[in-house]
């Protein structure tokens, strides 16, 4: 595949060899220049020659190929983009010849291109140690998308995989093998992992963390031969006499600069390889430049993308007549390897003369941090972080900007106890501080962008490209932008959507103070347009929290999310699941039998939930009312599993039965569940009650957790499980039941009033200014004088409780909603089940297709008869 655009005689011909990340960045610089002068009369003619079958892609995030990212998603550019900007590019076009005198290059296809400026951006190649047997099938490397495809194919016919090399790339590769489901080993020659970036202490911790993930690590192993295996495909024999059997081997033992062209055509290279360049990235030959991992500057190869990008900018500027220089680059890195956070800054090994170290190691939490400071103890010159890189940004800014360290620098890496850490706020950074090193964006550039009219974080991202490389600076960028915006008096917008210029808290206030009962009133008075899928359910939720009317009343019905509208949880095929309330998880055998009978009669898939209830799946919308009629007649009521409201109060068996229980946790759970059921809240609410300190109900993972003590109840608040688990905080101890209920009333109603839409209690509390202490003041000390009001508001909701399903099936109009078609009693033919483990499950699209074919065949057969 190639494009061609003829160069005119007056144009400067630039030929770029290689289209990796750096080569592409160089082209992008020239495109930007062209755009600024007008592409049509550009003085540049740019040709790109790539040895790979595709244009540039993101090698930094290559391992995401195994977690499902496609080659297209990894692409950094498209053929259309190059065509649009008249870039003449050729794929599969390795360069085989350079004629420095005639100034031409020749591709493997024999095509000759002349140049005025030649850029070598050939990158690097994986180093494969010279071990006999390293060239057999299933002995692979990790560099290109084609390599990954080969690894993927090999892993399908392998059980065990070994990565040779325990550096950064090696561990990335090990992660890929692990993701592919192989038993994974890492074999390293050095005594530790990531020996370049991490010191001995950090290396030990890193190893134990990686081994805990199931990857076996073998250090100080020199592979001597790769022979046929006894039980696996291969056997790796080590110098110390030991061996390891494996089905595939992945070499990731470092990279070597791809300097073959320079070698063959007498361009100066370093003793150990790499094309020698000066501060302008020029080689020793006029008009030939080298950038990225193939270039050797000051006897150093830079194997990271950020320095490569800097070289690309410097070379482009030099060709265009500018005067930027490349003066080395910071090699600090922060990354997550198999979920393990690792950070390395500057002189990680404290090799600088007179350097002093501060080390913090917490084996219990598996965290290791080391700071290296200069002999004056004033400047940070290096750091190693393993297990927790939250201090990385701050430390990096100290190191890069030479900021004087605070009086007790160790506080920078010690866990904050009580007081806050000596933070390095965005304001403390000098204008020269580099925020994004991939795109070389300084704090000064960001301020200039705001001066130039940018008004938001996303504006800054699009005009400076900050945070669009490795993304490691995103948190820092946000805090710099926020600080800058607030300095300019810009309020951070909290509008819920385009229809209301208010936050949820403000809407709640408007509804309550204005005594608004319907969405129409709210929209007419305070909004515009028709509303949307964001503000309608939020308003319905607020109206329910304040007035607690039947949510399917004609005024409210069009506001509800489908789960609320049909009082069930919609599943992927459009059917619903049914969860009746089983307060505290206590249920009689008779009721269990009813659930079984309903499940059987309607052929529903049955499963026990995490909240001690029973979920019946696969009910069609038209079946819901009759199923619920049976359940309600048997004494069940709705479980609100579909709603943003109280779900369950989980309980352990408590003192009634348990030898260790000190209070009746089941009784308490039932009481609480019955009190708060039906309370609509900003997000779902989960409770649990444990009967003793053994905590079998897992109350500390709930929004409201209660643990029995000899003297009463300990109350925990604002925990949750799910995507970002958080332990609940101890709120009050040894409460009697009356006080317990009073506090819960107040906490929940305060949350309902002030939280954002879809904000769980944990995030809500963390965002309250003053956090837990403030919440205690409001609830326990009644510092706002709101206590009585919050309690009476809760009582209104409790008194207005009704079983929504009972109301729905008794009401003719509501019942009409539960049909698939207004004009037919037929069922939705797209709902098809197959059997698995003696129960139904939704058919896959392929199963549905074959089912439809069978139906058609039957129909045709009938017609023929």
């Amino acid at each position, binding site marked *: 595949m190639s494009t061609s655009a003829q160069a005119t005689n007056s144009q400067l011909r630039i030929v770029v060899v290689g289209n990796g990340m750096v080569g592409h960045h160089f082209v992008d610089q020239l495109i930007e220049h062209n755009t600024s002068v007008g592409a049509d009369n550009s003085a540049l003619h740019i040709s790109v020659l790539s040895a790979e079958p595709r244009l540039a892609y993101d090698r930094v995030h290559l391992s995401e190929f195994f977690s499902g990212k496609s080659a297209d998603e990894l692409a950094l550019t498209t053929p259309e983009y190059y065509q649009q900007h008249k870039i003449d590019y050729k794929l599969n076009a390795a360069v085989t010849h350079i004629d420095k005198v005639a100034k031409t290059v020749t591709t493997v296809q024999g095509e000759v291109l002349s140049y005025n400026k030649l850029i070598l951006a050939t990158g690097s190649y994986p180093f494969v140690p010279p071990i006999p047997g390293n060239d057999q099938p299933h002995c692979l490397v990790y560099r290109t998308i084609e390599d990954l495809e080969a690894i993927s194919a090999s892993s399908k016919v392998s059980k065990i995989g070994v990565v040779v090399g325990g550096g950064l790339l090696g561990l990335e590769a090990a992660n890929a093998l692990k993701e592919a489901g192989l038993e994974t080993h890492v074999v390293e020659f050095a005594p530790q992992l990531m020996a370049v970036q991490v010191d001995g202490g950090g290396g030990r911790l890193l190893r134990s963390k990686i081994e805990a993930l199931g990857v076996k690590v073998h250090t100080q192993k020199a592979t001597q031969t790769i022979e046929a295996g006894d039980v696996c495909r291969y056997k790796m024999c080590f110098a110390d006499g030991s061996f390891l059997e494996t089905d595939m081997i992945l070499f990731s033992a470092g990279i070597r600069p791809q300097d073959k062209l320079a070698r063959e055509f007498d361009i100066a290279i370093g003793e150990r390889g790499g094309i020698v360049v000066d501060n302008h990235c020029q080689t020793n030959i006029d008009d030939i430049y080298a950038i990225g991992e193939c270039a050797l500057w000051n006897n150093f190869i830079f194997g990271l993308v950020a320095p490569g990008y800097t070289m690309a900018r410097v070379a482009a500027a030099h060709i265009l007549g500018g005067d930027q220089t490349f003066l080395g680059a910071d090699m600090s890195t922060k990354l997550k390897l198999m979920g393990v956070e690792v950070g390395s800054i500057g002189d990680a090994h404290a090799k600088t003369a007179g350097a002093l170290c501060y080390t913090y190691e917490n084996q219990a939490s598996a965290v290791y941090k080391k700071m290296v400071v200069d002999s004056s103890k004033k400047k940070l010159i290096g750091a190693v972080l393993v297990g927790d890189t939250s201090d990385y940004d701050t430390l990096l800014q100290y190191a890069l900007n030479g900021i004087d360290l605070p009086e007790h620098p160790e506080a920078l890496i010690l866990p904050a106890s009580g007081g806050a850490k000596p933070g390095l706020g965005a304001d403390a950074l000098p204008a020269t501080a580099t925020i994004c090193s991939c795109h070389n964006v300084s704090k000064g550039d960001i301020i200039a962008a705001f001066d130039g009219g940018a008004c938001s974080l996303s504006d800054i991202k699009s005009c400076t490209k900050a945070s669009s490389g490795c993304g490691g600076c995103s948190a820092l960028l946000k805090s710099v932008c926020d600080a800058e915006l607030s300095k300019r008096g810009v309020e951070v917008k909290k509008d819920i959507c385009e229809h209301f210029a208010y936050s949820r808290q403000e809407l709640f206030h408007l509804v309550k103070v204005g005594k608004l009962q319907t969405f129409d009133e709210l929209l007419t008075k305070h909004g515009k347009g*028709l*509303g*949307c899928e964001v503000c309608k359910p939020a308003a319905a939720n607020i109206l329910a929290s304040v007035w607690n009317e039947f949510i399917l009343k004609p005024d409210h019905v069009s506001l509800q999310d489908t789960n609320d509208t049909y009082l069930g949880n919609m599943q992927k*095929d*459009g059917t619903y699941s049914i969860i009746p309330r089983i307060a505290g998880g206590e249920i009689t055998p008779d009721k269990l039998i009813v659930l079984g009978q309903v499940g059987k009669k309607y052929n529903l898939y049955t499963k026990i939930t995490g909240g001690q209830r029973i979920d019946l799946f696969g009910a069609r919308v038209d079946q819901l009312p009759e199923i619920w009629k049976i359940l309600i007649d048997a004494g069940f009521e709705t479980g609100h599993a579909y709603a943003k409201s109280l779900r369950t109060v989980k309980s352990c068996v408590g003192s009634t039965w348990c030898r260790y229980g000190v209070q009746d946790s089941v009784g308490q759970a039932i009481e609480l569940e019955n009190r708060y059921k039906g309370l609509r809240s900003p997000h779902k609410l989960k409770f649990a009650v444990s009967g003793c300190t053994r905590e079998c109900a897992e109350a500390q993972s709930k929004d409201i957790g209660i643990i029995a003590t000899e003297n009463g109840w300990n109350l925990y608040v604002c925990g949750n499980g799910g995507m970002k688990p958080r332990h609940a905080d101890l709120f009050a101890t040894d409460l009697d039941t009356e006080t317990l209920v009073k506090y819960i009333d107040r906490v929940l109603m305060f949350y309902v009033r002030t939280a954002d839409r879809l904000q769980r209690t944990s995030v809500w509390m963390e965002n309250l200014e003053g956090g837990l202490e403030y919440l205690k003041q409001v609830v326990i000390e009644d510092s706002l004088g709101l206590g009585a009001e919050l309690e009476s508001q809760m009582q209104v909701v409790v008194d207005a409780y009704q079983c929504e399903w009972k109301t729905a099936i008794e009401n003719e109009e509501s019942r009409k909603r539960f049909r698939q078609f207004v004009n037919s009693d037929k069922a939705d033919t797209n709902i098809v089940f197959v059997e698995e483990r003696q129960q139904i499950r939704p058919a896959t699209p392929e199963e549905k297709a074959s089912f439809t074919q069978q139906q058609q065949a039957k129909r045709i057969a009938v017609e023929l008869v």
Partner: protein
Amino acid sequence: MTNSTNWITVCQESDLVANSGVCALINEQQIALFKVKNAGQEQLFAISNWDPIGEANVLYRGLLCSVGDTVAVASPLYKQRFCLSSGTCLDSDDVTIKVYPIRLENQAVQLQVSQ
């Protein structure tokens, strides 16, 4: 069938729900019908009930929303919004669903469905 311009009565106006949807079955095709109250006016819309992204017949159960002047329905499955008058998906460039002409004749809701 050759006559493709016939209007078919599918239900009565009273079967529709204001600012919400119902579904009709016509020649084995599922069609979602919406009645939108907008500035005192009532507008009817008919679109395919099949959500091509969630792959289920559920669009009539979505929430109605306005995006500027466009009236759309948000799929109850993954929340993509579909314009009720053009059928284009506002959240995915390459997805469009079918829309059908709809009218009200003496309280009868009528659709024009090509045969």
